[in-house]
């Protein structure tokens, strides 16, 4: 039992392990690097202005004398459009996913899936354009100025719907394959099996779908910039204009310098912290992330 001349295999495997291990560490570091870098860029503002003023100033006027840096209205706007969009897209996406697994004839399910995947790939600029040119004027005729939280919620709901549908479809289809025959053999009704067995079994996946869609919604930029009105004021109704944290950055970064620029990075930091909190929440709830 000799091992005739060959490069010692464990060495090759050790190298493989070392190289991939390095890659994994690097991949893991990217997000830390991003966070630290954004923090570093935001630091001058945090230091000169102080973190407190980002929530207590009278408004957002970074170029006025004296400058005002209140990010709170934008934080509220970001959270509001995200929540609103989730309230619409969550159930709608779930039912569409249920339709695809349980009710649709196979051909229709395939078509629907193709459609949803296409919608998932449509760039946000296109959604934004549609919102600006078609939706906002409709709203403006009803409740001026049209560009509002509501417009943002509607466009955003439409945008995250595909993510919601695909992720919940994956979750339901995953358990359906396992339990469908058993459930049918036990003589469950269609709705009975759905609400009694499939949805509870797919809970982890569905919760992941919900949180994945939420992070997408929170991060949406260009479409929000185009339809929400961008007024950096605390929104007091659904029909009031609002500026999201993301839109604030996109709107002003190109023109911002020095402390103004750093203040925009504070907004970016806030967004990153929100996402981190969401992912933590997802982990705490035992959600399964699916990247549909």
């Amino acid at each position, binding site marked *: *039992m000799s*091992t*005739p*001349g*060959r490069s010692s*295999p*464990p060495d090759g495997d050790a190298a493989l392990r070392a190289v991939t291990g390095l890659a994994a560490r690097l991949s893991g570091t990217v997000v830390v690097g991003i966070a630290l870098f954004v923090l570093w860029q935001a630091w001058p503002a945090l230091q000169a202005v102080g973190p407190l003023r980002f929530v207590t100033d009278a408004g957002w006027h970074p170029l006025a004398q004296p400058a005002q840096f209140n990010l709170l209205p934008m934080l509220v706007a970001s959270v509001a459009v995200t929540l609103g969009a989730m309230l619409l897209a969550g159930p709608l996406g779930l039912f569409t996913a249920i339709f695809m697994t349980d009710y649709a004839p196979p051909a229709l399910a395939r078509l629907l899936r193709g459609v949803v995947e296409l919608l998932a790939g449509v760039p946000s600029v296109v959604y934004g354009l549609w919102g600006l040119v078609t939706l906002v004027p409709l709203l403006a005729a009803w409740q001026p100025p049209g560009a509002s939280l509501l417009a943002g919620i509607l466009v955003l709901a439409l945008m995250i719907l595909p993510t919601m549908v695909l992720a919940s479809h994956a979750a339901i289809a995953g358990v359906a394959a396992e339990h469908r025959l058993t459930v049918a053999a036990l003589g469950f009704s269609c709705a009975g099996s759905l609400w009694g067995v499939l949805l509870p079994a797919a809970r982890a996946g569905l919760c992941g779908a919900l949180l994945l869609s939420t992070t997408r919604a929170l991060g949406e930029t260009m479409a929000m910039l185009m339809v929400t009105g961008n007024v950096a004021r605390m929104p007091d109704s659904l029909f009031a204009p609002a500026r999201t944290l993301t839109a604030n950055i996109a709107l002003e970064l190109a023109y911002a310098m020095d402390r103004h620029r750093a203040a925009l990075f504070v907004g970016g930091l806030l967004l990153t912290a929100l996402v981190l909190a969401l992912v933590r929440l997802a982990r705490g709830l035992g959600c399964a992330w699916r990247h549909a």
Partner: protein
Amino acid sequence: MSIHSLPTTTCAEPVPQTALQALDLTVRYRGRAALRGVNLTVADGSVTALIGPSGCGKTSFLNCINRMTDLIAGCEVSGTLSLFGEDVLTDGSNLLALRRRVGMIFQRANPFPLSIRRNLDLPLREYGIRSASERAGRLEQALRDVGLWREVIDRLDDPALALSGGQRQRLCIARAIALEPQVLLMDEPCSGLDPHATAAIEDLIHGWHGRYTVLIVTHNLAQARRVSDHTAVFWLQDGAGTLVEHGPTGALFAAPRHPVTADYVAGRAG
């Protein structure tokens, strides 16, 4: 190699060399013992059947021998296990060399999704056999040994997954014996096969007496009686599997010493 070529005799006079010795072998999964305190000695060239109800640690025991336990996250093995006097469990021992000495056949035949030829060629190549003609020779010999040669000679380059269940399992056996192992571990190799294919594999095992040391896990007591010369009975005690009785197959089935064994072989328990 010289040991292998010794003719096995039915008389027990010349004490055969010990192939495998387990002392206080314990396997834990994430801290929970699945197999506890196994002491077992297996003679070279013998066929040992491992029987007992499901979940009593037979497969865990098998997995220790070629350290498949390494692949399982959270699996811990303690105690000692030696193969022809060499320690198996030490971290420093050469894992790949060990696995080449110990072939394994699984419950579900698992040919690589490659051609029939590549299924044997790939491990041989890994094994360092550069000469194509030598590899071809070994391939033919292994396929002949498992009785597959005639069935596949004109389609060696077809995908292995196109074979029938019984053929796949024999291909996996050929893949294992092409590497000329000393020990063959078989984990319920016939559980997914029809009686005809099962008989073919049992015939193979019969032919291996003295050539390979075989450990076979089976739930089929009749099969254990047919193919093995020793039998080890595993049982679940205090939540962990353990070895309750071990001895020559004939004696064990005829006069079980342990009450659990008696009930099990009589079909009253398990």
